[in-house]
C-alpha cells in the first residue's frame, strides 16, 4: 500500500493547484479606468483625440503601418491638384490618376487602408475618441475648470470632424456618444443613418457655441501652441454657416446639382428651400471672428511684419507664431521627410527621395493674379506659338506680391538673395524641365531645408474671415462700404490697390478672385468651387489646364502656351460618394449619381 502514496501524492499535488491554476497573472495592462484616474494619461488620451481629428487637412504622413495617419487630404498631393490651382508630377499622387480621369467611385475612394482623398471611417474613429474623452474626462483628477476647458476642446474637435465629413458628403451620421459594440449582435445598433443637411449644420453650430463658452482665448504656455482657442470655435462656426448659405446647399433657384426626385435625399444633400437669412447668419458669424480677434483675443491680427509684401505674405505660412493663425497643426516630419516630399520642386532641395511630386502652378490659375498695380496682365498667347523667354519673365515678374510668394518660376531664385537663379529650360540633374506648370509652388515651403523643422499646416487664419464676411454681405446685397473695407484689409497688407464696390454680380466675381489668390493652395478652392456651384465650368475643375512651356531654343529660349491636362468632371462630383461598404451595409443613403 505504501507505494500507492507516491501516486496519490502526485495526483493530489496536481489537484491542489487546480483552483486558480488558470488565473491571469497581474500585469502592466491599461484599462479605461486606469486612464482617467491619472492626469497624465487623461491628457495623453486628449492628444489621441487631436491626433485623429482632421486638423491637418493635409496628407502629412505617409505610413502604411498606421492608417490613422494619412486619412485627410489626398494621397501624394494637396487636394488643390484637383482644382485649376495646381498640377502634379509623380507616381504617388492619387488625384491625377483617379479624380482628373473621373475614375473615382464609391469603392475606390476609400477602400480601407488607402484613400484617394479623405477616409471617412477614420474620421469617425476620431469622433469615437472624442466621445470617449467627453464621457470620461469628468472622472479625472483635473480641476472643474480644467475639465470644462478640456472637454470643450474635445467637443470642438468632434464638431470639426463632423464638418470635415459634411463639406464632402452633405448630411452625415451624427455620432455624439460612444457607440458600444460588445458582441456581433450590437452591430445593427451602431448603424447610425444620415441626418439631414440642416440637422448637421445645426449640430455643428450648436457644438461650436457650446465649446466657445469654455475655451480660453490663449494658452499662456507657448509649448501648447496648436491647442484649441475660443477663436477656433468661432471660426469653425463662421465657415460652416458660410458653406451652408452657399448655392450648392442653399440654392436660390431651388435646383439641385443633379436632378433628385426623392424629397428625403433632397434634404440630405442640402436645404430643400432657399433662405437669404442664412447669408446674414454667415456674415454675423464671420464678423464675430474678426471682433474676437480685435477686441477679445489680445493677440490675433492680420500679419503686418516684414518690410516688403512678398516676405510678409510668405511669413504667414513659415512662422510658427504668426499672430494671424487661429489654429494650425504641427507636422510630424522634418522638412526633408515626407511632409515636403510631395511639394518640393525637383532636386533643388536634397530630400533624399527619388520621386517628388513637384506641385506646379497652372497657367489657368496664374491668370487669377493681378499685376502689382491692381490691373490685369495681358495674356494674349496663342496655343502652339513660340514667344520669347524675356516676355515670360516680364509678364510673370509684373504679377503681384502674392504670386511671387506663392510661385517659383523660371528665371528667379529659390532662396531669395542667394544669387542662384534657375532657368528651367536648362538640361541638368535638377529636373526642373519637367515642371508641369508655369512654375513650382513655393508657398509653405520657402526657406525649407532638408532637416529643418517643417512648417505648420494652417486650419484657420484670420484673413479668411474678412473674405467670408465680404462674401456674405455681398449676397445679402447690403453695405458696400463694409464689403470694400473687409476685402481691402486683406489687399492692403500685400500692398495692392483697393477694390471698389461695382454692383452685386461684379463684386461677387471680385471677392471670389480675391479669395482664390489670398487662400491659394490652402485647400479652400477645392470646396469653394463646389459650394459656388461653378466647379463644372470649363477650366476650373473640368477641361483643359494649360502651362507656359519653356524651350531651350537658339538664339533665345522661347515659351509656348500648351495644354497640360484635360480633366473629367461630372456634376455628381459636387458631393463625394459615401464609401461602398457603408452603403452595402444598408444604413447609408448614397449621394445622387454615384
Amino acid at each position, binding site marked *: 500500500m505504501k*507505494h500507492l502514496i*507516491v*501516486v496519490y501524492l*502526485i*495526483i493530489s499535488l*496536481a*489537484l491542489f*493547484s487546480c483552483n486558480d491554476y*488558470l*488565473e*491571469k497573472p497581474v500585469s502592466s*495592462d*491599461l*484599462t479605461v479606468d486606469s*486612464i482617467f484616474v491619472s492626469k497624465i*494619461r487623461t491628457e495623453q*488620451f486628449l*492628444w*489621441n483625440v*487631436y*491626433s485623429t481629428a482632421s486638423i491637418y487637412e493635409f496628407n502629412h*504622413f505617409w*505610413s502604411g503601418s*498606421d492608417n490613422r*495617419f494619412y486619412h485627410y487630404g489626398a494621397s501624394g498631393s494637396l487636394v488643390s491638384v484637383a482644382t485649376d490651382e495646381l498640377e502634379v508630377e509623380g507616381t504617388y499622387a492619387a488625384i491625377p490618376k483617379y479624380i482628373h*480621369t473621373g*475614375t473615382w*467611385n*464609391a*469603392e*475606390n475612394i476609400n*477602400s*480601407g487602408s488607402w484613400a484617394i482623398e479623405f477616409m471617412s471611417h477614420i474620421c469617425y*474613429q*476620431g469622433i469615437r*475618441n472624442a*466621445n*470617449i474623452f467627453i464621457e470620461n474626462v469628468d472622472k479625472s483628477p483635473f480641476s472643474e475648470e480644467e475639465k470644462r476647458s478640456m472637454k470643450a476642446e474635445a467637443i470642438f474637435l468632434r464638431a470639426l470632424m463632423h464638418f470635415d465629413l459634411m463639406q464632402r458628403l452633405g448630411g452625415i*451620421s451624427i455620432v455624439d456618444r460612444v*457607440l458600444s*459594440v*460588445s*458582441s456581433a449582435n450590437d*452591430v445593427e445598433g*451602431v*448603424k*447610425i443613418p444620415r441626418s439631414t443637411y440642416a440637422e448637421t449644420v445645426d449640430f455643428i453650430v450648436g457644438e461650436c457655441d457650446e465649446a466657445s463658452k469654455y475655451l480660453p482665448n490663449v494658452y499662456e504656455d*507657448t*509649448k501648447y*501652441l*496648436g491647442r484649441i482657442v475660443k477663436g477656433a470655435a468661432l471660426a469653425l462656426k463662421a465657415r460652416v454657416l458660410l458653406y451652408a448659405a452657399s448655392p450648392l446647399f442653399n440654392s436660390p433657384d431651388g435646383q439641385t446639382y443633379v436632378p433628385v426626385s426623392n424629397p428625403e435625399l433632397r434634404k440630405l444633400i442640402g436645404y430643400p428651400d432657399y433662405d437669404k437669412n442664412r447669408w446674414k447668419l454667415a456674415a454675423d458669424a464671420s464678423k464675430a471672428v474678426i471682433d474676437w480677434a480685435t477686441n477679445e483675443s489680445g493677440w490675433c491680427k492680420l500679419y503686418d511684419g516684414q518690410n516688403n509684401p512678398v516676405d510678409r505674405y510668405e511669413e504667414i505660412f513659415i512662422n510658427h507664431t504668426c499672430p494671424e493663425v487661429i489654429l494650425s497643426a*504641427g*507636422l*510630424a516630419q522634418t522638412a526633408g521627410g515626407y511632409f515636403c516630399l510631395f511639394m518640393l520642386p525637383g532636386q533643388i532641395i536634397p530630400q533624399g527621395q527619388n520621386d517628388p511630386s513637384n506641385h506646379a502652378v497652372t497657367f489657368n490659375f496664374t491668370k487669377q493674379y493681378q499685376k502689382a498695380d491692381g490691373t490685369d496682365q495681358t495674356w494674349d498667347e496663342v496655343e502652339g506659338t513660340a514667344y520669347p523667354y524675356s516676355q515670360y519673365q516680364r509678364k510673370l515678374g509684373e504679377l503681384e506680391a502674392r504670386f511671387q510668394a506663392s510661385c517659383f518660376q523660371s528665371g528667379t531664385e529659390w532662396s531669395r538673395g542667394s544669387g542662384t537663379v534657375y532657368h528651367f529650360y536648362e538640361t541638368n540633374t535638377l529636373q526642373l524641365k519637367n515642371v508641369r506648370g508655369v512654375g513650382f509652388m513655393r508657398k509653405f515651403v520657402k526657406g525649407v531645408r532638408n532637416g529643418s523643422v*517643417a512648417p*505648420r499646416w494652417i486650419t484657420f487664419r484670420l484673413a479668411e474671415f474678412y473674405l467670408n464676411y465680404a462674401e456674405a454681405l455681398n449676397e445679402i446685397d447690403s453695405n458696400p462700404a463694409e464689403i470694400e473695407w473687409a476685402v481691402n484689409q486683406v489687399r492692403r497688407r500685400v500692398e495692392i490697390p483697393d477694390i471698389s464696390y461695382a454692383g452685386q454680380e461684379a463684386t461677387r466675381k471680385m471677392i471670389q478672385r480675391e479669395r482664390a489668390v489670398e487662400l491659394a493652395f490652402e485647400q479652400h478652392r477645392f470646396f469653394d468651387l463646389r459650394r459656388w456651384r461653378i466647379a463644372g465650368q470649363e477650366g476650373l475643375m473640368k477641361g483643359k489646364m494649360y502651362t507656359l512651356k519653356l524651350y531651350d531654343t537658339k538664339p533665345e529660349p522661347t515659351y509656348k502656351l500648351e495644354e497640360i491636362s484635360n480633366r473629367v468632371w461630372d456634376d455628381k462630383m459636387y458631393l463625394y460618394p459615401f*464609401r*461602398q*461598404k*457603408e452603403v452595402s451595409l444598408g444604413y447609408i443613403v448614397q449621394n445622387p449619381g454615384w
Partner: protein
Amino acid sequence: MKYPRFLIVTLFFVTHANILVATDNDSTTVNIPYEKQNRECTTSSVSVVKGEDLRKSQVSTLNNTFFGRFPGMTVIQTDGEPGYDDASIYLRGNHSMRNNNILYLVDGFEVSNINQVSPEEIETVTYLKDAAALAIYGISGANGALLVTTKKGSHSNKKVNISLKARYGIQTPTRLPQFEGSYNYAKLYNEALLNDGLSPLYTDKDLEGYLSRNDPYSYPDVNWYDEVLKNTSHIQDYTLSFSGGNNFSRYYVMGGYMGNDGLYNHTNGKNNSNINFRRINFRANVDLDITKRLSVSLNLGGRIEDRMFPNTGTATFWQNMATYAPNLYPVRTPSGQITGTANFPDNPIGSLLEEGYGSRHTRDVQAIVTVKENLDFITDGLSAFAAISINSNYQNGYNKTKTYSYYEPVKTLSSEGNDSIYYIQRGADTDLTVSTGNDAESNRRDIQAGLEYEKSFNNHGLDFLLMYRQERYSVFGEQSLYGKQNFSGRFGYAFQRKYLAGFSFSYSGTDNYKKGYRFGFFPTLSLGWVISNEHFLLDNQTVNFLKLRGSAGLLGNDKGADRFAYNQYWGPASSQGYYFGTGVTYYDALVQLALADPNFTWEKSKLYNIGLESEFFDRRLSFTVDAFYEHRYDILVNLANIMPGFSGVSFSTMRNRGKADNKGFELEAVYRDRAGDFGYFAGLSYSFARSKIVESYETPHKEEARYTQGKPIGQRFGLEAIGFFRDDSDIENSPVHTFYPVRPGDLKYKDQNKDGIIDANDEVAIGKPSVPEISYAANLGASWKGFDVELLFDGNTNRSVYLTGYLFWPFINNTNISNWTTDRRWTPENQENAAAPRLTTQSTNNYRSSDFWVRNISILRLRNAELGYNFSGKSLRKMKIDKIRVYLSALNLFTLSNLDADVDPETLSIGYPTLKTYSAGVTLNF
C-alpha cells in the same frame, strides 16, 4: 477476446492499429505507445508509421521524411536551407481560416516541435485523424495531432543489442533558375527602355563589349551562382544504440550525430562560414519493475542543435545571387578587392566572405518520469498511473560580424576616347566583432495522472480510463505563463468481439479565456462492427478481416487567438501622438486598442468519420478507406469588416463568428506477397480534402465575385487577364487600366464589374486553392535473398501555384531577367506566341495578382529510392555480428510536373533550393 494483461497504463487510448504498418502482418497486435492493443477493437482512425521507415529518407528535419507516408497528410517543402528546411504539413487540408497548427506530442506530452527528433530514436509516429482518436485533447485537438513514440527496451535473451548505423549523402539542387548573361541582359534592357518610351542605356559599343567578353572589368558578365556555389553539399548521420532487458528492467539508449552543410564555396568556417547544421541527439528510456505491482520508467531525450550561416539573410543572399544584373560589377577589382556600389553594396562574394558569420545554438531536453501501480488487489484489471514531464528549450545566438571596404567601379572616357575605370572606396574594414543574444527560452512542466481498468468476461469486454492533465508553458519575454487543464476519460465496451462502442470526453480549459468561460466539454461517440467475426464470415477464405467503424465528436481549437482578448486594452499606438509648440514637440497619446470580446472563446469542430478496414487473400491484400466531414465554427473573424465604418470602430474586432466546412476521404491499399526467395509489396494511397468557407464576415462589396465566402480556404483572388494589348487603338478602346499607364504588350484585364475601369474591384477567384486538394503516394518494394529495393513516390494535384517575385519580374528594381522570360516575352514581332508581357523597367500593371501567373499544377516525385543488401550467415555470427546491411539511396531523384516555369515546382522561388541527395549507408547489428 485477448486483452493483454500487461497492458497497465493507457495514457493514450487513441492509439490503435493501422493496417499499412503491418510489417508484422501475421500478428494481431501492433506496437503503439505504452501498449499493445488488439487492432480489431479500435473504433478510431489513425495512421502509424515506424521510425525505421522514416529513417530511409536522409534529411535533417523529421517532417521531410513524412512525404507519402501518411494517408491524409500533405507535405510541401519550399526551402532547402540546412537547419531551416522544415516542410509545411497539412492534415486533411485546411480546417480554419484562422489557424491550422497541429498538436505535437512526444511520449504523450505536448512539445512545440518534433522536427529535430532523430528518426532513429522513434518507434512510431502516429497521426490521429478522427474525433475518437483526438477526443482526450479536447480544447486543443481539432486541428489533428502527431504523436511521436520513442523506442523502449524489451525483454531479450541477449545481454545487449547494439546497432551502429552510418550514412553519407551528397546533395545537389533539384533545379536552379537560369538567368541571362550580360550581352542579352543589356540588349533586353534596351528593349525594355524603348518599350517604356525611354532612350536606350547601352550603346552599340557596350553591346559589342559584352558580346566579345574580352574585358571583364569594363564589361563584366557575372553569374553569381557560379561564383558562390559549389556543385554539391554533404549530409551525414551516425547513430549508436543499445537496448535490452530482463525480468525487471528494460532499457534503450541511443546517441546520434547528424551534420549537413550548405552549398557555399570558398568559406573557411573561421571568419566566414558556409551554412552548417549539426545536431546531436541522445535518448535513454529505462523501465523498472520495482515490485510486482509498482513500476517506474524514465524517458529522457534531448538534443543539441548548432547552426552557422553567413551574415546576410539566406533569402536576401539568394535573391541577390539570382537578381543582380550580370554586368553590375565584376566580382573583384583587378587588384582583388571586393566590388560594390552605393545602390548595390551587397556583392554576394563580399556578403559570404567578408562579413563574418552568425550562429544559433539550441538545447532541448525532455524528461518524463512515470509511476504505475497495479491495483488488482482492489479489483482485477484496475491500475493507476502518474507522470511528470519537463521540457526545456533554450536557444541563443553567437555572431562574429564585420564590415569591409568595397570598391565601386566608375567608367570614364580617357582623352583618347578609350574606356578607363577607376574605383571609389566605399565602406570600411573593421575587425570581427562578437555579439551574443537573441536568446529564446521556453519551458513546459506537465503532470498527468489517472486510473485505468480493463477486463473481459464471457462475451463482454470492458475498459475505461479516467485522467487528469495539467500543463504549464512559459516563453522567455512574455508576461504571462500559459496554462491548460484537462479532465478526460474513455469508456469502451465490446460484445462478442463483434460490436464495439466507445465514449470519450474531455473537460478541458485554458487560461486564455475569462473566468467562467474557460472550460469546455468535448464528447465523442464511436461505434464499430467487426463483420468478419460474424458467423457468416468467420471461416471465409477470401475475407480475413472486415470492420466498419464510425465516430462523431466535438473538439476545440484554442490556437490562433490573441492572449486574454476578453480584456479591453488601451495603450500607446505607433506614432499616434500629437505635435504641439513652436519646436514641434511630440506628445505621446493613448488609444483604445482592439475591441475586446468578453465572450471570447475557442473554435469548435464537429467532426464525423466513417471508416472500413479489411484484409483479403490470406491477409496479402489490405484495404482501408476513411471518409470525413468537419464543420468548424466559432472561428475568430474580424467584425471590423462588417462594422459600420461610421461607428468609429474600424480597428480589429475579433469575434467567434466564422464557419468553415471540410470534407474528404483517404484510400489505402497494400498488397504483399512472397514466392520463394522473392518477396514484394505495393502500397497505394490517395487522399482528398476540400474546405469551404461558410461564414467569413467580409467587407461588403458590390461585386459578388470578390467574396471568399463559399470558396475554399486559401483561394487566391486576382484579375482575369485576357491577353496583351496589341496596339494603341486597342488600349484606347479598352477599359481604363488604373495601375500604371499601359502600353502595347501589357496585360489586358477583364472588366468584371463593367464599370469601365480596371481596378481591385475586378478581382475574382482565380485558380484552385494553394494547398493541394489531392495527395497520392505509391510505395513499391521487392526483396530477393539478401537484396531489397524500395521506391516511394509522392505527389499532389488540384492545386494552384502563383508565379511571383523577381524570377518573373525582370528589370523591376534593376533585377536580372530569366531565360524563361526572354523566351516568352511579348514583342511587336512576337505577339501571337507571347507568353509573358512586354519588358518594362517601370510598369506595375503586369505584376498585379492575376490569373496570368496562376498555374494549376500536378507533381509526382520519387521521394525516396533505396537498394540494399543484407549479409548474414555463419561467418558473421562467429564475429558476433547479427546483421550487416549496406545500401544506396536517393532522395528527390526525379520530379514529374506540368509546371511551365524554370523553378522547382515545390520550391517556387529563388531562395535556397530543394535538394536531391545520393546516399550510401551501412548498418551493423551486434
